[in-house]
Structure formats: C-alpha cells, structure tokens
C-alpha cells in the first residue's frame, strides 16, 4: 500500500485535511518514546487505498522539540511515497520556511495551500501555477471545508503517489557559505557509508549547528572540528552566526518567490482586529477570559453532571447487571463473581460516569481552540503564570482541574514543553475537583454549620496556595534555568466547525477510555477483592463490615492519629482508602459504616433500570438530594476535638492521593514513574500539612510536630536533589554538544 504523510505548521489545517481524507475511523497512538500524538487513517479513492499519517505541527525541522524530532526521524526513516506539505494560504511566507527545509531534503511532495477562503478574504491573489513552475512540484490551493476542493485534492494525491515529483530548486546562500558547503560535500563523499545520501542537506545542517540531524546523517566530531575555523571566519565577516545567515537567505528566497506569485490588493482583517482590541486589552482581557471560563464550567457542570446518573444506570443495566446474572446463572465461585461484578463491572461503570463530564469539557475546549480564542487566553494569563515558572497556556488545564482532574491532566497535552506538562500535572490535583465539593460541603454543614461557606472556601484557597507553592518549588529548585519560552502564533478568529470539533472530542474521549480506563479497571478489581475478602482470606461477595479493607483500615488508623483521628474512628481511615477510588466515596463510606444501614439491594430488572436512567436527567434539575448527611451526624461524636480534627481530616482529603481515574490519566501522560512521584508527593504533603495543622492548633505533641516538619523538609530536599540530578544530566548533554561545537 502507498503511504503519504501530512506535514506543516501548527494550525494550518493538517488535521482538518486529514479528517477529510480519512473520515472518522482513525488510529490514535503515540510516537515511540514521546507523548506526541500519532494519527493514522486510510484514504479510499477510486479503488485505491492509501495510508495517511498526520505528523505533528512544526515550524522547522531542527530537532529541538519532540515534535520536530518525530517529524525529522519520520522523514529520514524513509518509506513514504508522498508528503503533503500543508501551507496556510493566509500566511504563506512564514509557512514556506518549513517548505524550504523540506525542499532541501529532496523528498517527494505536493504543496497544499489550505485556507484559501481566508486568503481570498484578505484580498490575496495566489498564482499556484507560478509556484509550481518555480518549485517543480504540484501546488494546489484549497478550502478544506469545501467538498469540491477536497475532491480535487484527493484526485491530485492519487495521481501523484505513483510517480511523485521532487522539488528541484536550489536555495542559494552567499558565496562563502556555498564554498564551505561544496567543501563539506567533498569531505562527505570520501566519508563513504553514510545513511543519508543528501550531502548538501547534511552540509547545511552542519552550518545550522543542528547536531541531532548530523548524528543521524553519520557526521562525526572530527569533521566538525575541521570546519570550525572556516565557520568562524564567515561569522566574523558577516557579524552573524551561520544559522542566522542561513535562515535569512531562506527568507530571502521565500520573499522573491512570494512577490512573484502572490498579489495583494488591500488588507481587511477587521473582524479579528476589533475582537482583539477587547480580548487582549489590559482592562477587559482578564474579565473576558474569566467569563468564558465560567461558561465552560457552567456548561460542563450543568449538562455533564446531569448525565452522570444516566450513564451510571445505563452502564449498570447493560454491563454490571448482565455480568451479575451471568455469574449467578453459572454459579461462579465468589471470588470470580467479585472480580467480574464488583471489579470489572463496577469499574467499567465508573469509567462510563466520567464520559459526560469529559465529553463536555473537551467539547468546550475544542471550541475555544478551534475558534482561535485559546491563544488569547494564553496571552492574558502569561504574566501571572510566569511567576510560578509556567507559560500562560497552562492556566487552562488548571482551571479545568476545578471540575475534574482527569480531563485537566489530559488537557495538559496542549502544552509544548515536557517540563511544563510535568509541572502542570503535579499542580492539577491540588485544584479541588467537583467530587471533593460534596465531601467538603457535607462535612461543613454538619461540623461548621455557622461558617459552612467559609470553611469550604478556605479549603479551595488552601489547595490553590499549595499549588502556587509547589510551582515555586519547581521553579526555584528543580527547573532553575529553564524559563518557559513561548512564542505562539495569534491565529485569525474562525467560526468553529462542528464536524472537526466532534472528531477531536471523540478522539480525546477514546484515549481516556483506553488509557485511564485500564488503570481504573485494575484499581477497581483490587478494591473489590479487598472489600469482599475476610482477613482470613475467605471470600464472600456480599460481605459487609468485616472485610480485609476494614481490617486494613482499623490497623492503619494509627497513621491518621496526628490529625486527631482516634482508633475508634476507624471508618474515617477506611473512607480514606475508598476515597482513592473516587473522592465522593468518602461520604458514602462513612455513612454506611456509621449508620450500619446496608444499602438496599438493587433488584430492579434491566428495562426498569433503563427507564430510571432516563428519569434521572430531569430529576437532576428538579431536586437536590441531601439524605446522605444524616448519618454523618453519627460520626460527629467520633471526631475527638471536633472541629480542628475534622478540618485537618479535610485538609488530608484535599491534598492526598488523587483518585484512580486521575492516576490513570497521569500515567497516560507522563508514565508510571512520574505518576508514582506525583502521588507520593501529594500523599506525603497531605500527611505533613494536616498533621502540622492539628498539632499546632490542638495536639501540641512535639514528636508529631517534628515528624511532619521533617517530612516537609524532606520534600524540599528531594526537589533540590531532583534539580541537581536534572542539571547534572543537562550539563552532561551540553558537554557532549560542546564537544561537537
């Protein structure tokens, strides 16, 4: 089968074209070793089936970022029959910079000038034939939202994958540079068995000091040293480094070509300009941003949450219930029933309950991204976020964290640098998610009836405070020398396109269900087994109260002692364990353990369940359930030293181990190692902070105070050590580069 790949700048419409070529059936994965998304699909056109790959958006091929490295490796690995170089027709000059690099690699290609409609709107007249004549490859201008244009593109592709053209044009550099290039080419000729035959390209890469590309083309240290002198001489003559001279000449080439082939009548980009006057202004910028974020929330909470029960009951009806009936019918042993029903069934059910929230959240984020507003938000928040060493863009995932940490962690994908992704993911769980709100609210209503709102608010504030402190710690200790540099195009506003937004949202949802779903399922099976095993390891699927889980809870309640939790208050410890499953379970656990009310057995049939699923949607909007709080009053007496102990318990719930679903998402984004570090950090911090709070206000036990203070010191030391190790690795890498340069 023939294989084509789409390459181009971010935001020029690659994914739109990819979707148009392949339809919704796509394979989403990651490129090996990096968290750069890989999309693959198939183009069916007149009995021809062609494999299509969507490469990440890049501005140049210099292997400085993961995205660029992935693309460069992809090209160098060969095997691609045709590259579609997508160019934003409303911004040809900047986009052609990447094209000049592709041309120098002598690869088979077609240029697709996309967003032609916008270019026409800007009164640009693009002469594609002129481009084609100069570059000796096919050039087509399209509007990828237009069916006819897409058909023309498919036809062009199918004609050219068989016998593709390679750009046959040479970009000229000043004489001194050309001299070095030809010397280098000669040197390379006697260097023999290199993996890449394009000597001119390798020579230019050397002048650009692009060491990764050089190592891929078999260049070595000695050769570089040999030319160091000549390069120095040129740099002295031009008073500029060779990489800048090369970039300058490429832009010169582009300018010549552009003036030949594009005519511009007059400019009218009014709409964008007018909106930006407000959206970027010092006065209105922030309020507008906050208002839009409020809308995102409102939409997610109102629509998303109203569907949670629906998804819960429906998935219980079509998955858990049949599994239950199946195991009863074959009378499987209790352990199998537990794993199947309470583990796998309930696990899938809990993955399903996340679907509406995640869907709504990604839907709104996709709309913001597609419309072009996201870039403005990044600008508005940049100054504030810079204070904790993050770019403005990372504010969005953090805000999302207030509704649910899972989509928030996944939204961190939109950040470019790995460092920014890691720090953001570390901070997200400190934003109190929607599931923690009922816990705060119910506890506050029972224990702090006169100041309930203040108590809840203070917990949110404490979370944010620790997020800011964590950010500082990262900035000051770990990534000392890595400032977040961000340069980003400010795209023209666009009317969001439903089809592509839905494909995008659906892809995200699929990724969540597969990667986070796996972890949730494993966790749910483990908890189910612990919950129905006795401490003599006998199994009873309907066990209540005396399970291994309760046993562990009782035995470990000593850990919560510094928070004023006594041993007879062991349900509070069990609730901490079930809270790992999902935060709102804290309340449910305390309720059932304290009230000893066995939950009513669900005996309804599948059709009845489906009916009640539909009924749950209007119910959500019409009634508030508060029956759960009653049993909490029973717990009231058990929290010794009342309020202070409860507050420190709530502090613990705020900070400690995020729920398994979040853990799943974190693993998906930064791997097991990073995820382990993050949950260890959070749990240690939670223990130290809440113990310190209780001991300073009520307990006054010097041992516990010392212990929690030392844990905080330990955390800080660990951060500093991590910084040392990282900068050690860095200087090593730099050292290697230095040796080359």
């Amino acid at each position, binding site marked *: 089968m023939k294989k084509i790949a789409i390459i181009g700048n971010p935001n020029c419409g690659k994914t739109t074209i990819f979707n148009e070529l392949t339809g919704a059936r796509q394979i989403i994965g990651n490129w090996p070793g990096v968290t750069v998304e890989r999309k693959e699909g198939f183009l069916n056109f007149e009995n021809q089936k062609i494999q299509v790959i969507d490469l990440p958006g890049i501005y140049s091929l210099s292997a400085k970022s993961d995205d660029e490295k992935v693309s460069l490796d992809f090209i160098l690995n060969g095997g691609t029959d045709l590259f579609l170089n997508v160019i934003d027709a409303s911004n040809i000059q900047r986009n052609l910079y990447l094209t000049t690099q592709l041309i120098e690699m002598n690869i088979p290609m077609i240029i697709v000038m996309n967003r032609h409609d916008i270019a026409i709107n800007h009164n640009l007249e693009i002469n594609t034939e002129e481009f084609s004549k100069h570059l000796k490859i096919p050039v087509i201008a399209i509007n990828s939202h237009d069916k006819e244009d897409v058909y023309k593109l498919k036809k062009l592709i199918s004609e050219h994958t068989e016998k593709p053209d390679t750009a046959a044009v040479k970009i000229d550099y000043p004489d001194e540079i050309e001299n070095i290039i030809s010397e280098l080419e000669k040197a390379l000729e006697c260097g023999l068995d290199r993996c890449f035959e394009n000597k001119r390209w390798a020579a230019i890469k050397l002048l650009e000091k692009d060491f990764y590309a050089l190592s891929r083309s078999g260049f070595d240290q000695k050769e570089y040293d040999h030319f160091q002198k000549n390069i120095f001489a040129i740099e002295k003559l031009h008073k500029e480094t060779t990489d800048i001279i090369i970039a300058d000449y490429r832009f010169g080439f582009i300018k010549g070509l552009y003036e030949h082939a594009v005519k511009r009548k007059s400019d009218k980009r009014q709409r964008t300009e007018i909106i930006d006057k407000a959206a970027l202004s010092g006065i209105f910028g922030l309020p507008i941003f906050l208002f839009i974020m409020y809308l995102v929330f409102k939409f997610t909470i109102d629509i998303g949450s109203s569907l949670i029960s629906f998804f819960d009951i429906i998935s219980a009806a079509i998955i858990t219930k049949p599994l239950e009936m199946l195991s009863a019918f074959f009378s499987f042993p209790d352990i199998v029933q537990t794993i199947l029903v309470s583990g796998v069934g309930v696990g899938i059910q809990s993955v399903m309950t996340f679907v509406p929230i995640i869907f709504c959240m990604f839907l709104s984020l996709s709309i913001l991204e597609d419309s072009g507003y996201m870039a403005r938000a990044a600008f508005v928040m940049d100054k504030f976020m810079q204070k904790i060493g993050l770019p403005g863009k990372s504010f969005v995932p953090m805000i999302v964290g207030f509704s649910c940490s899972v989509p928030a962690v996944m939204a961190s994908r939109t950040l470019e640098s790995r460092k920014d992704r890691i720090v953001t993911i570390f901070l997200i769980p400190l934003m109190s998610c929607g599931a923690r709100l009922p816990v705060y609210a119910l506890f506050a209503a029972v224990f702090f009836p006169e100041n309930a709102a203040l108590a809840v608010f203070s917990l949110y504030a404490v979370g944010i405070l620790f997020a800011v402190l964590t950010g500082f710690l990262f900035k000051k200790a770990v990534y000392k020398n890595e400032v977040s*540099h961000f*340069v980003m195009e400010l795209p023209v506003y666009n009317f969001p396109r439903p089809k592509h937004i839905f494909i995008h949202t659906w892809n995200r949802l699929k990724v969540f269900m597969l990667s986070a779903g796996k972890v949730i399922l494993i966790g749910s099976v483990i908890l189910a087994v612990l919950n129905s095993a006795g401490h003599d390891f006998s199994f009873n699927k309907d066990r209540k109260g005396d399970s291994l889980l309760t046993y562990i809870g009782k035995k470990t309640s000593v850990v919560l002692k510094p928070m004023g939790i006594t041993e007879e208050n062991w349900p509070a410890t069990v609730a901490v364990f079930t809270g790992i499953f999902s935060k709102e379970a804290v309340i449910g656990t305390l309720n059932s353990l304290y009230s000893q009310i066995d939950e009513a057995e669900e005996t309804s049939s599948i059709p009845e369940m489906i009916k009640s699923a539909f009924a749950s949607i209007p119910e959500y909007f019409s009634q508030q359930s508060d029956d759960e709080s009653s049993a909490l009053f029973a717990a009231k007496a058990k929290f010794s030293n009342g309020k202070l102990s409860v507050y420190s318990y709530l502090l613990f719930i705020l900070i400690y181990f995020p729920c398994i679903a979040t853990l799943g998402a974190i693993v998906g984004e930064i791997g097991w190692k990073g995820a382990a570090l993050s949950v260890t950090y959070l749990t240690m911090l939670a223990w130290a902070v809440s113990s310190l709070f209780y001991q300073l206000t009520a307990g006054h036990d010097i041992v516990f105070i010392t212990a929690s203070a030392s844990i905080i010191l330990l955390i800080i030391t660990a951060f500093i050590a991590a910084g040392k190790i990282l900068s050690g690795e860095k200087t090593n890498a730099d050292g290697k580069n230095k040796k080359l340069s």
Partner: protein
Amino acid sequence: MTKLSEAQIGKHKVVSIEGGASVKDKLLCQGVLPGKEIAVITRKNKGPCVIEVGLTKIIIGGGMAEKIMVE
C-alpha cells in the same frame, strides 16, 4: 536599543537575540531575526507582548521578550 519587553507600542527593528539555541530557533522560524522590522501591537507591563511580523501576529511570552533587543 531596548529589550522588547520594555519597547513602546509601534514599529521597531530587531537588533539581536540573546539566549540559547532553542530560544533563537523558536524565533527564527517565526521570521523574527536580526534586521527584521516588527511592530509591537500590545504589551503587558514588563511582560508578554503581541507583535506583528509580516502578515502574522505572534505572542511572545514574558521570558522570551526579555531576550530580544530592538531599536
């Protein structure tokens, strides 16, 4: 000559880009190189700014704007 992070709204010419290879590279491919004319559209106090290069507007983050010298 001033830093871009302190430059007035309006037209300027890029003089030099300080900072490491990755900073330089990110700017190069956006067409921000020494000698280029740029226009500052909006700028936050000592911080990030929006500039126009050719036909495109780009956002330059606060840290980055300090590395660009203009006149």
